């Protein structure tokens, strides 16, 4: 379970200790989607797969219809600003029949508009709105792509790592509430 560190000068960034995941479900997915899924891994006892961004919605549909993953638990994103493909879009699915959870992680660049999952799972409606609100990832085809938690005319996307917590936008509070800063 070691971090991958080279003893000489440039250290590779440490990654999670993982083992490859292979079972019947991965065989089915490989047959169906081929090389659009780049890895199947198990980390800390939890299974996840990394497809390419366009393949996410077909995979969600396939999993819902064929493998009984009928409950979309969460849609969220993580920001890695130093990578070229900045955001890590994460979908967590659960199957009532099989009692197991899997994660689907894709890497998308800034400005890319992933397809919405609302057609497959109705839960994704507000969850994707929140991802848009916090990260600025717009979902193509979403029925109502607006900010959900922050006011409509807020500038900026808080959970991105470009701005720290003390540099958050205070134009809105100055204008609407008349106070110096929200901090």
């Amino acid at each position, binding site marked *: *379970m070691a*971090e991958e560190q080279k003893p000489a000068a440039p250290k590779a960034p*440490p*990654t*999670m*200790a993982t083992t490859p995941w292979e079972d019947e479900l991965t065989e089915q997915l490989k047959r169906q989607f081929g090389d659009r899924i780049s890895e199947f891994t198990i*980390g*800390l*006892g*939890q299974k996840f797969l990394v497809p390419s961004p366009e393949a996410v919605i077909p995979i969600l549909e396939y999993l819902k219809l064929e493998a009984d993953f*009928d*409950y*979309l*638990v*969460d849609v*969220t994103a*993580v*920001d890695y600003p130093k990578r070229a493909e900045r955001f890590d879009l*994460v979908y*967590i699915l659960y199957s*009532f029949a099989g*009692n197991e*959870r899997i*994660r689907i992680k894709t890497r998308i660049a800034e400005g890319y508009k992933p397809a919405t999952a609302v057609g497959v*799972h*109705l*839960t994704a*409606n*507000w*969850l994707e709105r*929140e991802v848009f609100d*916090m990260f600025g990832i717009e979902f193509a085809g979403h029925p109502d792509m607006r*900010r*959900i*938690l*922050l*006011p409509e005319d807020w500038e900026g996307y*808080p*959970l991105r790592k470009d701005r*720290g*917590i003390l540099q*958050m936008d205070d134009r809105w509070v100055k204008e609407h509430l008349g106070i110096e800063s929200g901090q």
Partner: protein
Amino acid sequence: MPDSTFLDASELVLNMGPQHPSTHGVLRVILKLDGEKVIGTECVIGYLHRGVEKIAENRTYVQFAPYVDRMDYVAAVSNGLGYCLAVEKLLGVEAPPRAQVVRVILTELNRVASHLIWLGTHALDIGAITPLFYTMREREETLNIFEKYCGARLTNHAFRIGGLQYETYDGFEREVRACCDLLLPRIDEYEELLTGNRIWIGRLKNVGILNAEDCKAYGVTGPMLRAAGVKWDIRKAQPYSGYERYEFEIPTGVNGDTYDRYMVRMLEMRQSVRIIRQAVDGMPAGPIMGKVPKVIRPPVGEVYVSIEAPKGELGYYVVSDNSTQPYRVRVRPPSFVNLQSLDKMARGSLVADVVAIIGTIDIVLGEVDR
């Protein structure tokens, strides 16, 4: 055909504003009405957004634990349990058995306390004012136990990463047993007041029906899903913190309407008392804190852990990059996801039913908005 005037307009837009006694917090619901019937709703949330996920990236793991209580402030212990379980999984430690048993006792007391508030406020919205006082009185007993154990009644910060901070005080077991003995007859009293009451049945039966497929499609969990007939509880499906050792049943409903959700939550309170009794009887001796390093610095990784909070599935997705502060903490709030189904349930019902439906979803705005 005369020209239509504004008097002929059939759609009325009514604002159930953020300041409203029945919205359980600052929730704004814009209702489109046709007379008294609701033809569409829209929820506007975010009035209580405090940026907890952004704060998490700027605090160490131990320092973030008090913030977590303030999301679902009615049932704060469950939030703490979920967070501690997630970080413990990242670190690869497990709390010792005694700590797990005390955690179960406090979490189930917390569940009873949360359902008591739900019952009191829901009955108050419907118009029955008396149960509110009685449930608050019972909640005082559970809050006294929390206060004596960890020092705070509401935002407890009861658990630490790796186990517990405080040993149980003298008389803990005696008081917990006394509380259980007090609760069951009082739950019977609430049922006497409400269950057979024709006004209650008339207001709640066949209101806000959400059947099982819709529940799964909308991602609704918790008592709402169980009232629709799906016998699913994370405590039984993927047990955590020693829940597999206790015997309890999962109450389910039939129709998925508001009355079934009421019955499911009342039965859940009874099952919680049953779990607490078993836990107190079988409490092992031993250490209360696992082997956790002084400075918590989990290896690189990510984990998703979810627990059965009183309101549904509360999940924590924690990403760590081997520093003392988490890289990303995502909280999957049950109230946020359950609230999406308000639109589906409220269409076609009356305005008074919207109040009942908001009450039965059991939302806490601190959790919806984080």
